[in-house]
């Protein structure tokens, strides 16, 4: 695999390979990757999972958003070699068989795309947005950063700002995320919401593991 042609390897040094294991959408893969390869390139080129898109390759557009250990990340800036053992979900893994995830269904109901190129990233990102809000994570537009946030429109716009849509389908994307958020909140009992808030209250070690949604799968 040619990991990246943008700045070619003028040094003439041979590529370095490393063995890693990735769990992608529940399936384990053993791979020998070039140390320079990003998760994005490995998913697309080695595993044929082309749902995840490359927009900018610089962390600026979010088209490459995937879930790593249940948390959203830009695949283009993540070195595969640094993610040995990681549990990854891509857009291909969001549905349960033929049953779309609530967000996928909401995107269709609300017509939340035009060309669709940004959509896999939007879906993975929004999946994590719902989870982060359920954990009580604030955003920069949360009026009181110490309080429990409500996922209203300004919050959704801010939290989704790492995902650019060149077609400008933002109005319907926000509507779709709002709809999925409202359904999720309605489906969750108040006690569970409080528990989620308390969980976010503890001193966070990094990578608090997969979300409940992931673990339940």
């Amino acid at each position, binding site marked *: 695999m040619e*990991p*990246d042609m*943008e*700045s070619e*390897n*003028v*040094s003439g*040094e*041979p*590529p*370095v390979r*490393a063995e890693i294991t990735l769990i992608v959408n529940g399936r384990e893969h053993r791979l020998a990757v*070039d*140390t*320079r390869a*990003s998760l994005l390139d490995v998913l697309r080129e080695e595993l044929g999972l082309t749902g995840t898109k490359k927009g900018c*390759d*610089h*962390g600026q557009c*979010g088209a490459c*958003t995937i879930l*790593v250990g249940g*948390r*959203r*990340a*830009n695949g283009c*800036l*993540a*070195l595969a*070699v*640094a993610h040995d053992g990681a549990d990854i979900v891509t857009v291909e893994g969001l549905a349960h068989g033929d049953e779309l995830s609530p967000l996928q269904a909401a995107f269709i109901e609300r017509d939340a795309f035009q060309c669709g190129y940004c959509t896999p990233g939007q879906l993975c*990102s929004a999946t*994590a*947005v719902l989870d*982060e809000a359920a*954990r*009580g*994570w*604030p*955003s*920069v537009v949360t009026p009181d*950063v*110490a309080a429990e946030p409500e996922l209203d429109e300004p919050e959704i*716009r*801010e*939290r*989704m*700002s*790492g*995902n650019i849509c060149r077609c400008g389908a933002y109005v319907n994307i926000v509507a779709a995320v709002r709809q999925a958020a409202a359904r999720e909140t309605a489906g969750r009992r108040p006690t569970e919401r409080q528990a989620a808030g308390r969980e*976010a*209250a*503890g*001193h*966070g*070690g*990094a*990578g*608090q593991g997969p979300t409940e949604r992931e673990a339940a799968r």
Partner: protein
Amino acid sequence: MRPFTYERARSADEALALHDGDTHYLGGGTNLVDLMRLGVERPARLVDVTRLPYDRIEEHGGGLLIGAAVRNSDLAADRTVRERYPVLAEAVLAGASGQIRNQATVGGNLLQRTRCSYFQNVTKPCNKRDPGSGCPAREGEHHNLAILGHTPHCVATHPSDMAVALAVLDASVRVRGGSGERGVRLDEFYRLPGDDPSRDTTLDPGDLVTGIQVPPLGMASRYRKVRERASFAFALVSVAAALDVADGKVLDCRVALGGVAHRPWRARRAEEMLRGAPATEESYLRAARAEMEAAQPLRDNGFKVPLATNLIVRTLSELAPSKPGDGS
């Protein structure tokens, strides 16, 4: 991209031992991988420091010790940080995107490089990337570069929002080097460019950041950032401020600016003027103007002077709104 070997350090000692001249420590990689792809950084070895045991936020001497491997998003979500140091949570949340904050580490955030477009373009001269080659930004594209503390050698700004909050918190950086562990006050951690812009900090090669010590604050605090779009953009100007007011008078006050200099800019002059002054918009404005007297805007970034002035006034006013009849 130049090929490199990858090692995962299990202890600080191992990380230090694995670091030879041609090495970079790897945090989340959100800045380093990008710079390697652009050819700006060309290490032969990466030493991954994200699995070192510095992934906790702990109580420490009445304040907090924040591990270098803590992810930006976990720092901003931490209940204690949100309650006791809102300026820090707000600053982290004002930076980058939800995705990037999940990947980025505290250590990497501190040590991210400038976003000056010439620095990122290896076909251009740049004293920071290629010492002695010149600084095209001075006469070129510099509308988002420095107005304070710059030299003819470099007019770059430090891009981190988090670091501006840490400056106002009087934080110090825990560093592991060849001669053991030391604490470096944020003031002494970041450099002004002087005649050697190649160094952003006073760290020695191979020094490992293990954490950040934040002393107790005991004042209201907040972070405000102005950018060219509503979200997901670097600061044009930002302000971190902490303020303690009693009986309409400023008891204590700290202000730091982002987006204006090669390092987070502590507005010491403004702070001095404000201590003991009436907590009114007039005082805030007088102090902000006095601080900005030192500004030397470039051809296209003079707008940052009134922007910074107004943002200081606005942020302080939000922390302690002046009541009618107060001192003025």
